[in-house]
């Protein structure tokens, strides 16, 4: 289908002269869809997001396959051409503190992106930053814009980054474990916020997480990964009601739940590692 926002086809990535990290990954993302990438550490879920964004760590490169974004092939694109496509792509990172420059005020970090991507003037970018902070329900946005990152709480910092990500009206957002570092109550607010904005703007989201609970609540479809390979790919309802693969089932058994006795927890069998 050509109306998919994102189509990854048989994507493989490897460390130069080293092991293969991703094995023939394929996935499609329709407009407004939230797709979860789940798996344990090292399964390659973040690596897929980085391939799409074109921010692979230096020794890793795409060895085969392609990534079509809005019908345009991203693999093999020059830096300049990629930058042109980049305005419709955004990232919500895992750790908001390390994603923000500690020595610059929020206002300059937010407006930088907009001036670069949307070629706005100072005043326009400032107005847009204010509007975006309002959209992520931050009270007193003028005050927040004057602050430095360390003066904000974890939840507030994540809101600032969400506001920045949505500011350029992207078609696709890669959310890389955006709530892992947060308290559960703040996590719920942030998840609700991401879904609210994503629906309002019709943005597709590639949602990287290791928490099946988060997947259940926010994703429409999901890819389960293990050791760089796709284990199972299905709409969320299928994965949660009828997990087909043994690995997916083991992942469920290893997830602690407050509503079940503790001795029902089963660590992943060693042969999956």
């Amino acid at each position, binding site marked *: 289908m050509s109306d998919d926002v994102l189509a990854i086809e048989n994507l493989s990535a490897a460390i130069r002269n080293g092991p293969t990290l991703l094995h023939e990954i394929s996935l499609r993302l329709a407009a407004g869809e939230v797709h979860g990438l789940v798996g344990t*550490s090292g399964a390659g879920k973040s690596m897929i997001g980085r391939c799409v964004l074109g921010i692979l760590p230096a020794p890793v490169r795409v060895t085969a396959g392609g990534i079509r974004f809005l019908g345009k092939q991203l693999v093999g694109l020059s830096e300049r051409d990629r930058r042109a496509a980049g305005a419709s792509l955004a990232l919500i990172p895992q750790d908001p503190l390390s994603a923000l420059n500690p020595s610059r005020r929020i206002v300059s970090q937010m407006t930088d992106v907009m001036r670069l991507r949307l070629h706005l003037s100072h005043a326009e970018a400032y107005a847009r930053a204010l509007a975006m902070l309002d959209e992520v329900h931050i009270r007193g946005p003028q005050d927040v814009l004057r602050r430095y990152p360390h003066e904000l709480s974890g939840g507030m910092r994540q809101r600032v980054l969400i506001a920045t990500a949505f500011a350029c009206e992207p078609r696709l957002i890669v959310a890389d474990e955006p709530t892992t570092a947060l*308290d559960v109550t703040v996590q719920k607010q942030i998840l609700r916020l991401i879904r609210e904005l994503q629906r309002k703007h019709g943005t597709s989201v590639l949602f990287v997480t290791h928490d099946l609970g988060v997947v259940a609540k926010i994703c429409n479809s999901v890819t389960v990964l293990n050791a760089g390979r796709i284990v199972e790919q299905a709409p969320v*309802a299928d994965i949660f009601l009828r997990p087909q693969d043994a690995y997916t089932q083991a992942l469920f058994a290893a997830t602690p739940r*407050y509503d079940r*006795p503790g001795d029902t927890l089963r660590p992943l069998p060693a042969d999956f590692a």
Partner: protein
Amino acid sequence: MTALIDATALEVAFPDTSKKRPFRPAPTTKILHGVDFHISAGESVGIVGESGSGKTTLGRALLRLIEPSAGHIAFEGQDITHAAERALRPLRARMTMIFQNPLAALNPRRTIAASVAAPLVARGDGSDVRQKVLRALDRSGLPKSFADRYPHQLSGGQRQRVGIARAIVTEPNFILADEIVSGLDVSTQAQILDLLRELRRDMGLALAFITHDLSVVRVLCERVVVMHQGRIVEEGDCAALFAAPRHPYTRRLLAAIPLPELDDTWLDAEAEEVA
């Protein structure tokens, strides 16, 4: 049942440097407001709450890493509320701690064996150090060969096992674990939880487990105390409390946990306001 640790009306206050004026002592801010906490030998208690609820401060006060400003703490009947560090020294081997971030807690220039041996060396226990270290590593599920490696050569889960080995090397009867599985993925987390259950069974350990994740508490603990703004708002048996939470704050915490099952309305449900 005698309490291993018995804390009553515990208060902790820190100087608030942001409000300090020149030539005057900084005014203090109270973090704990009269907390009663007890744990019996071999018992496992979860201490839960959000950031800033005072759960870490409570844990550190129990180990007397910070001195309370009011109240009492007794360890095995002995009052340690204001005990001097020298008097506490013999107890340090019996009550230990596992830290949240093992990479920060382990000296990067020391081998695993040297780090694990540190508590033994500190109390002048020079006999069979190597044997005891290897035994602690083995109990924590690490092979002997890891003894001479360095922290950066290990994965996150392995490093946390080193932290556990260091906490059990002196054969304590109380361990405080502060958010030790928060940064781990479900598979590593389940392994560490499994290990802690095994150690508790084999060594008869009492465990105070600080976390913001109530699901993890259910796996590991018999009893749970819920903290909010420096007070314990609710406590009780895990199964009973999670089935029927009474305090609105506990209900809000539970409602915020995304269970791995489909629920279209979960994200729409407004969080219950806490009075």
